[in-house]
């Protein structure tokens, strides 16, 4: 008899983001990676999207464009898209049925996936990267606060499972009323076929003028919670001790101007390279030429703990590089000081500089923590592990 787990599934991924897929950020990587792993298990994947999507060719993509008219006043285009996306989805869904489950990264003001669930009864799995209300209030601008909250509450109520990235985020979701029994922690991960220790980056050091340099790398979006300014302030301290040190920032974001300012003020332009956003496939090459990789995340200004699950942490592990990370949130859980990373105090450029200096003068320690991080990453933190958690959740739901 065929086991339930051997059944070929038909999964629908539904991403609302407007321009998200134009920039390879965390949500794009997460969704793309989970899809890749589910395809490897020979399931079928369908994709509804509000933006262009870079996905494997065997994913059937349905693009639901935003209204071109209502997009110049804050949040209106998102409100309007709640109705529009549901209308599109209702039209397309009958063509691709039967669908076993919908996987949906939550987006502000939008509960169209909830409406679809109510109409068709398809299990709905949410991916909660945060509490949208909290994110808008603390990191953006909060207009129509009730509507943001209501949309999220509707989705939480109608969902079957809420996947979130960290214990800290689970606590925040519960604080805002999400049902704790539905929440499943499924951190980010990495793809060992893309991030591995044998990347061929020949010529890149020469191109960037980095031959003979000690390279300290960072990758990601330059947002407040990534603590980019504290890493920037550590540059001059590191350069004082290691004159050939160069900091390679792979990414871009809203704190770019602040980073440029610190680099200029500290007169370390010669020791800093900022690449801007690179295509995802280029990132591993850039990180592979680094001698140390840093994850300087910080707790949130309103007192909540750092709740992210930075993909960079897992990618750093896959590259088998020595890691310096701040002891905040999930980083305290996945990294053990002096075993698979050097953990340092948050918001402390001296501590970051000291840790980099220690790895520079103690290559043996650098080698040990890099090896441990790699082994740990392969054993526990690949996207295959995360996709398994997702599929297991589906099978256990069906068994019930």
């Amino acid at each position, binding site marked *: 008899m065929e086991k339930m787990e051997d059944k070929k599934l038909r999964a629908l991924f539904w991403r609302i983001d407007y321009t998200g897929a134009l920039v390879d950020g965390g949500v794009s990587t997460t969704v793309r990676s989970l899809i890749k792993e589910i395809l490897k298990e020979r399931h079928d994947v369908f994709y509804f999207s509000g933006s262009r999507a870079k996905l494997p060719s065997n994913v059937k993509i349905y693009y639901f464009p935003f209204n071109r008219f*209502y997009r*110049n006043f804050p949040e209106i285009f998102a409100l309007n898209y709640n109705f529009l996306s549901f209308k599109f989805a209702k039209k397309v869904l009958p063509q691709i049925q039967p669908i076993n489950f919908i996987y949906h990264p939550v987006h502000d003001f939008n509960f169209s996936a909830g409406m679809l669930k*109510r109409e068709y009864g398809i299990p709905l799995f949410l991916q909660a990267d945060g509490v949208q209300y909290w994110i808008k209030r603390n990191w953006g601008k909060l207009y129509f606060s009730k509507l943001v909250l209501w949309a999220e509450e*509707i989705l939480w109520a109608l969902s079957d499972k809420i996947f979130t990235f960290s214990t800290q985020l689970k606590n925040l979701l519960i604080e805002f009323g999400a049902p704790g029994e539905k929440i499943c922690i499924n951190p980010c991960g990495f793809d060992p076929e893309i991030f591995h220790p044998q990347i061929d980056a020949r010529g890149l050091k020469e191109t960037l003028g980095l031959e003979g340099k000690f390279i300290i790398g960072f990758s990601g979006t330059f947002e407040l919670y990534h603590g980019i300014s504290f890493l920037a302030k550590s540059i001059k301290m590191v350069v004082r001790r290691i004159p050939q040190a160069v900091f390679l920032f792979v990414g871009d974001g809203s704190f770019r101007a602040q980073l440029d300012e610190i680099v200029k003020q500290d007169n370390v332009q010669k020791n800093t390279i900022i690449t801007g956003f690179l295509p995802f496939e280029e990132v591993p090459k850039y990180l592979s030429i680094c001698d140390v990789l840093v994850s300087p995340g910080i707790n949130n200004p309103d007192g909540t703990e750092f709740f992210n699950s930075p993909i960079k942490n897992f990618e750093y592990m896959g590259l088998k590089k020595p890691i310096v990370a701040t002891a905040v949130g999930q980083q305290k859980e996945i990294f053990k000081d002096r075993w698979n990373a050097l953990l340092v105090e948050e918001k402390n450029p001296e501590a970051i500089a000291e840790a980099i200096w220690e790895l520079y003068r103690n290559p043996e320690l650098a080698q040990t923590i890099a090896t441990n991080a790699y082994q740990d990453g392969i054993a526990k933190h690949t996207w295959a592990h995360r996709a398994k958690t997702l599929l297991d959740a589906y099978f256990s739901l069906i068994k019930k």
Partner: protein
Amino acid sequence: MKLLLLVNGNAKRIFEAQSMKQEDFEIIKINEKMLAKPRKMLNYLRQNHSEIYFGCLSIEFQRFIPFMLIYILLSKPKKGGIIDEEGAKVKFNAIKTILITIPLLIVEAVGSFFIVVYSFIYYFVWRKWKIKS
């Protein structure tokens, strides 16, 4: 000297796609939030530039284009446009901006008001009754 106000995207890729020369431009990195700060924006726009361009990743997905055109209208040179990494371009035209872009923006504002009112009712009904039934 021309001015590129880089909203998002990569200046080098924009110039390549538009067959423009980077050395002809002064580049200032801004973000979408900055568009809501007219005083700061006008500071950039009232300097001695021959043309003003806003640069972005993709015009197809770029929001706030009418506001950018209005800024060019208020700038000293009143010349330029919006350019992206994909080679697309919106050329500034003062008459078109005054007669089409601005009136459409007003219509959009009125329509937006109704969307907000409708959304409040719709979301309220869903939260109160539909998720429970």
